[in-house]
């Protein structure tokens, strides 16, 4: 049986790579992505040039400017990054069925069993790099190994090297020697532990002077237990030796109806915002009816002007297709969500839990519901007939 082959595709500084496509003037310059309004805002992404000069992701803008006054700060454009990522996914899907997006621009590919189709992993990588270069104008690095941990470490390592091919293959059995001199952060469990600031595990590595994977590999299970507790000790023990049984998990997507609005003028006017959310509900319900689907829950998200994003979800007693069935509850949910005075820049509404029919049909439909249903359906027909050329209801008011 062929052993597992996992590839890791890494587009370094993905947001910056995209911004550079949009604005070629940014190429080879020290660039960072961050909200520009404040010195305290954190850097979302930094270009390799800026990283060399001492900037790093998560650093406050003010500090970055002090370290590197010449740095160009670009306002983030999360929607662009999502959009390109979606396109990337579509392209990858055509090649391999099992892939996993770690985050935007970072993908695990399960290459097991595809040797006959595409040749060795190096050959496949070359083809993939060519595709990204030609179709997306993006550069990437790839690592191949028997598991996700080592594949990712290889892809990251390859960027630091001088090998122009940007591809590194770690043979089975070579995992532990390969990882040994690398920084302990290369192990995902270490990154997870360090990110949990509340439990202060971040400091353990500094406390015990555990800097490299070799430092961790030198400890027996008891020492790891004393430092990290029994729960993480075993994982650390395995990973420090290059063992990672995690599978590549393809994305699971349930069908939903998604509507969003980017507000041209940021506002905290509750009347205006209520109007917008009701508009989105109307749009979502209309889509549900066209799809002949019912939804069981609604998820509302808002992004404030300071980029803070909050989301709330509400499960309803029964499936719905018409706005009047859920409008009141939605307004309550929305009001509850808006607990800050900061202006809103973006609102989204997602109808989830789609089903083909109502679970329990009412034997005698209420008169009020019937009237509203008939009205909505008539409006849907008009909308379909005139393809959006006719305005009514909220659209007219808008």
């Amino acid at each position: 049986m062929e052993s597992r082959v996992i590839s890791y595709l890494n587009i370094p500084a993905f947001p910056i790579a995209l911004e550079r496509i949009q604005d070629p003037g940014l190429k080879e310059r020290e660039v960072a992505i961050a909200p520009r309004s404040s010195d305290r805002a954190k850097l979302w992404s930094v270009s390799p040039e800026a990283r060399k000069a001492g900037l790093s992701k998560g650093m406050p803008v003010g500090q970055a400017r002090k370290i590197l006054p010449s740095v160009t700060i670009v306002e983030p454009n999360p929607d662009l990054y999502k959009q390109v990522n979606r396109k990337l996914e579509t392209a990858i899907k055509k090649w391999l069925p099992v892939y996993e997006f770690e985050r935007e621009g970072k993908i695990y590919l399960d290459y097991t069993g595809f040797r006959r189709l595409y040749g060795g992993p190096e050959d496949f990588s070359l083809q993939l790099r060519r595709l990204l270069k030609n179709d997306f104008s993006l550069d990437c690095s790839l690592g191949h190994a028997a598991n996700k941990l080592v594949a990712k470490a290889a892809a990251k390592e390859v960027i630091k090297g001088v090998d122009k091919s940007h591809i590194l293959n770690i043979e089975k059995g070579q995992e532990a020697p390969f990882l040994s001199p690398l920084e302990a952060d290369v192990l995902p469990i270490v990154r997870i532990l360090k990110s949990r600031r509340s439990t202060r595990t971040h400091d353990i590595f500094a406390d015990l002077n555990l800097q490299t994977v070799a430092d961790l590999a030198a400890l027996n299970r008891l020492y790891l237990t004393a430092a990290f507790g029994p729960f993480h000790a075993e994982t650390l023990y395995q990973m420090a030796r290059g063992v990672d049984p995690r599978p590549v998990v393809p994305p699971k997507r349930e069908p939903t109806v998604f509507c969003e609005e980017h507000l041209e003028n940021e506002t905290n006017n509750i009347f205006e915002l209520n109007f917008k959310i009701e508009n989105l509900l109307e749009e979502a319900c209309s889509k549900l009816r066209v799809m002949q689907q019912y939804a069981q829950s609604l998820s509302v998200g808002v992004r404030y002007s300071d980029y803070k994003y909050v989301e709330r979800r509400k499960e309803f007693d029964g499936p719905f297709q018409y706005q009047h069935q859920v409008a009141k509850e939605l307004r309550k949910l929305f009001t509850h969500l808006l607990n800050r005075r900061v202006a809103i820049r973006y609102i989204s509404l997602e109808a989830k839990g789609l089903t083909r029919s109502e679970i329990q049909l009412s034997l005698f439909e209420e008169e009020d519901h019937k009237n509203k249903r008939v009205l909505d359906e008539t409006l849907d027909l008009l909308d379909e007939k005139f393809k959006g050329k006719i305005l009514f209801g909220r659209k007219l008011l808008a």
Partner: protein
Amino acid sequence: MFHVHTHSVYSPMQGLASLEWLCERARSFGHQSLALTDTNGLYGIPHFIQVARENGIKPIIGTEFICSDFRAVILCRNQRGFRGLCRLLSSLHQKSQSDFMSLFESECESWIVLSDDEKFLLNLNTFYDKNSLYFEVTKGITTQKEIKWAQEQGIKLIASARVHMREEGEDDLYRLLRAIDENCTLEEVSFERVHSPFCFFANDDQMKRWFELIPEALHHLDYIERHCRSDWFTGDLIFPQFRGMDTEEASLSLRQKCLERMVWRYPEADNGMMRKVEERLSYELRIIEEKGFSNYFLVVDDFVSQSGINCGRGSGAASLVCYLLGITHVDPIKHNLFFERFLNEKRVDPPDIDIDFPWDERDDILDYVFRKYPGRAAMVANHNFLRDRSAIREVAKVFGIKEDEISFITNRLPRVEVDQTWRKILFLANQIQGCLRHLSVHCGGVVVTPGPIEEYAPVEWATKGVPVIQWEKDQTELAGLVKVDLLGNRSLAVVRDSLWAVNQNYQKHYDYRSFNPVDDERTKEMMIIGNTMGVFYVESPGTRLYLQKQRSGEFEHNVIAGSVIRPAARRFANIIAKRIQGEPFTHFHPSLKDVLDETFGVLIYQEQVTQVAMILADFDVVEGNDLRKVLGKKHKQKKLSHYKEKFFSGARKKGIEQKTIEDVWEMILSFSGYSFCKPHSASYCLVSFKAAYLKAHYPAEFMAAVISNQGGFYSVSAYLEEARRFGIHILPADINESEFHYKGFKNQIRTGLMQLKGIKRKTIDQLLFSRSEFGPFQNITDFLQRVEMSFEEARTFVQARALSSIRHKEKVLVSLMWDVYIFYAQKKGHFNGVDNWEEMMDLPELREYEVGQLLGWEEERMGALVTIPRWRLYQNLLKRDDIVRGVDFPGLVGQSVLLYGEFVTSKATRTKSGDTMLFVSFSDDCSIYETVFFPEAYIAYRDILFLEGVFLIQGIVQDDLGSYVLQVHHLRRLEM
């Protein structure tokens, strides 16, 4: 006609009009009276009475009382009503379960009550007569049905505009104010019924038009106007009572105390001196007795007796009585202190005695005051108004602007271009400035009253659990309440702790009260060279530079030094320094010699303005004092013109030449702004001499006390550097050696455990107890078993290297950290079920921490580099021959030099053209030295200047009267 229900800016976030605006508007409408009825408080009443009098308006005192059950406007008919109102408001703010209705009942003859709450009115109708209870009718709020109801019940109607706004059309502005208060957006403001668009300061025609169908509602205003008292706060002072003594008993007791303590203060005085003392004492006591202030002095004496260490400051230090009582410690006769600045026969405002206590004893003193005078003492408040940036910030928040953007704009105003939204925000913020936002507690002002304090002023409870009256210090004074300022002073604690350590270490017997080192040569020398870092009152870079210019260690000259660097006299600093060094000078007029000789012909002290006006233009003491007060205020032009006229005519009458008069007046005018009086400066200067003496003779004990008491002008690392420059070794914190505080002895300072961040006081106490009871800790396990502490705390001890005394030399520090981890893992039960786990614990070879890591922890865990000076990290870089030191400046004047330094402190200022420039103190291994960054250099280096680290500095040395400053041209931050 008049407005019977008016809110000013003193209604917390419920009124837009200032008191000045209200009174002026009332006068312009021809109103005789005005009732101020701020919400649930009398926050602005003393000020209102003053402004109303100035405008010829009869002030009527009241409040709009809003509780959970009802709302009513209460107006005071008389003094009893005022007391009752204070009680009612106090009980509301203290959230005690008071029966408000019983208070309403008991005050039925001293209050007039207006309300539109039907249930409440029906309740009151049974015991209030027809002329004391009214149904409040307001345009846009009251309905016809309600008016009819009142008429059926026989309750008289009263016309009220419920003034919350100034002009018609300000309802949006008012809504904004409410949105700020309710922390919501404009659309979410709960628009209660009391806020109709008609709630503005309407004129008579508007009121007549609004109430033309019920004219009796307007007629009833006349009754209220006639029957409410308006002659409030007529200048009677309210003094505390000491042990229930009447004025006569108190005077006798005070005289007795003063006489008893004369021997203590003047043990070796000859007859001539004693005669002087007796004369001055009888003069002061006569004035104190005539004014009825004896009780006040006894109360203050009582406070002071609670602490062995204090420093009476302010004008009170000019009083011999205060000196004898031990309230102050500078001899007013020896140092020629002007008593009349403090008290005089004609002075009408209350005396003001300010006393400093060691910062850590101040709360005990306050506790004593509240224990000794239960229910009769309270703190004075501070009023926090919406001002400039706070107003802009609040308005911007209502408009949904994000926090970062608000900071961005407010930090750059007015030099930032703003969009239309921001222009609107700035406009609106300007409109709502001056509205009372909330109360806070004055840092030390305490009021003690002869009876329950709630009858003299409304009292609230601050979050820290102390009672606070609703007035700030000026209004407290206007209301006739006499306050005492009890302030915390860290330097007194420094002197106390140093003296204690010196007495302990060297078997000395220094006593703070009698310790007077003003003639000590080493102390003087220290003052002359400005080596006064850590020394109270003279440690700032500006003062140290001035001391270097003045080059005098005389006490009188240093009293001048403390005053001359304050804004009013700062421009004369160089002139004075030259004259102290012997430059000849003449007085504007020979008669000024007696007053200005001690300050070399220049006005330095506040009271000299009074004295000059008295001598040259025959002002009496009160007028002279008033002139002095006016000089220190803003918007003084109008009042000053009156004094100018008087000064010129008075001087002319004495035959003084016009040119001289003009010159002297010019000198008086130049003395505007913040300044000190001599008694204050002398009082502080004595403390600074005591501190300087200790630094000169016992630097280890002194610097240890400076750092232990925290909060000085400089950082801990700067003080440690200073100690090192005195040849003192700084020893690290250690669990077997350190005490809680820093400990100085001979040429060593042992870092205190207090310096370890994140270690609870309880843990340290337990550690010290365990050590004293059971001896030193033997090893890490012994330590962790004997002292109960959290895992975090145990880590901190390792990271801060406080375990040196229990660490085996061959073991690396990492192994101690592993011991901590294993100890706590075992405690948590992580090894349960593992047999012989201890045998399996065989550590691999450990790598020791890197130096950078250890120093990083040291800074993080101790807040400073304690074990080594920072510059030592760059020693290799600094071995260049061309690098000089700050101490070399005198021989390098005018030359371009290169030196290194660690940032110590800075002070920004503006050039005449408005550009920013910066004075920065740096330190090297030999001294602390001063530099100046002119605008060009400041702009070039401001981004790196405040970063931690050591800098390479290039500039030109300049000499300013013997003080040396480096004008910086280039700056580079050194990389390790």
